[in-house]
């Protein structure tokens, strides 16, 4: 196992390259999810605003 991690002396190079690539994949997924969720939240909030505005008008009438 330690021989595997040692990578024939190239451990810093091999593992940093793999680590950075993994980070790029994970960050892409995380960031896109966040963007999508925020967009849906914004749509939901505007729906609630419309609803409360409508109720306010109903009450006035």
């Amino acid at each position, binding site marked *: 196992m330690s021989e595997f991690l040692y990578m024939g002396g190239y451990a810093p190079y091999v593992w940093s390259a793999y680590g950075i690539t993994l980070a*790029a994949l994970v960050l892409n997924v995380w960031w896109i999810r966040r963007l999508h969720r925020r967009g849906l939240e914004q749509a939901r909030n505007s729906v609630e605003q419309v609803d409360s505005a409508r109720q306010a008008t109903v009450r006035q009438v």
Partner: protein
Amino acid sequence: MKLPRWFHLLGSSPYVYRLAGRLSPWLGAVGCGLIAVGVFWGLVIAPPDYLQGDASRIIYIHPQTAYVGMQAYVVLAIAAAIGFIWRLKLAHAVAVSAAPIGASFTLCALVTGSIWGAPTWGTFWEWTDPRIMFELLLLFLFLGYMALRAAFEDRDKADRVSAILGVVGVVNVPIIHYSVLWWNTLHQGPTIMKFDEPSMTTDMLIPFLLTMFGFMVFFYWLLLKRLQAEIVDREQGTRWLHELVTESNP
């Protein structure tokens, strides 16, 4: 000319949003699976290179990230051209979605290449290497595309102007590919994509192709998810989005 039905459906935001939502789990699973198997094969089963030793194992991720970056740019350029010619808003949305993903993979390719170059070429960076320079230009094209869009308030104007940059920049992609043949560079010549047998043993070729295909599928998964987010952003205030958010969270 009468356009087929699917062409009209692909112009419909709710349809494309749902289609992307239905397709993306499959792409995500296949992409992650292929990458996992390919990386395990590449790190554990494949033999070390007789010259580079275990440093050669970076070959199972570095060309893949570079290739995805180039493919993302081709997608961006084609989508931008379609959006520009047929005034298709969704095509512009695809181009917008491809840009940040492509930029991140291109940056990743530059960094992993730099890490690989240190022990094998004896240098992290070489300003005179054509492939490195055109890859760097690719990164700047992605960033330039995004910066240009950010300069416009009006989304339609941003779509049309940025599309021109997107289409023109695609010339860079074949230059990156052929740079190793046209100029003297530190990069090796083509290993797989040539009219000859691949110059790699099967134990290395299998994980190489597994991760190559895996990264490509993973990219299209990201693209579909990013496109969904982009559609939500562009469709704020529409009835179908209103119905979508009220039915999914009553």
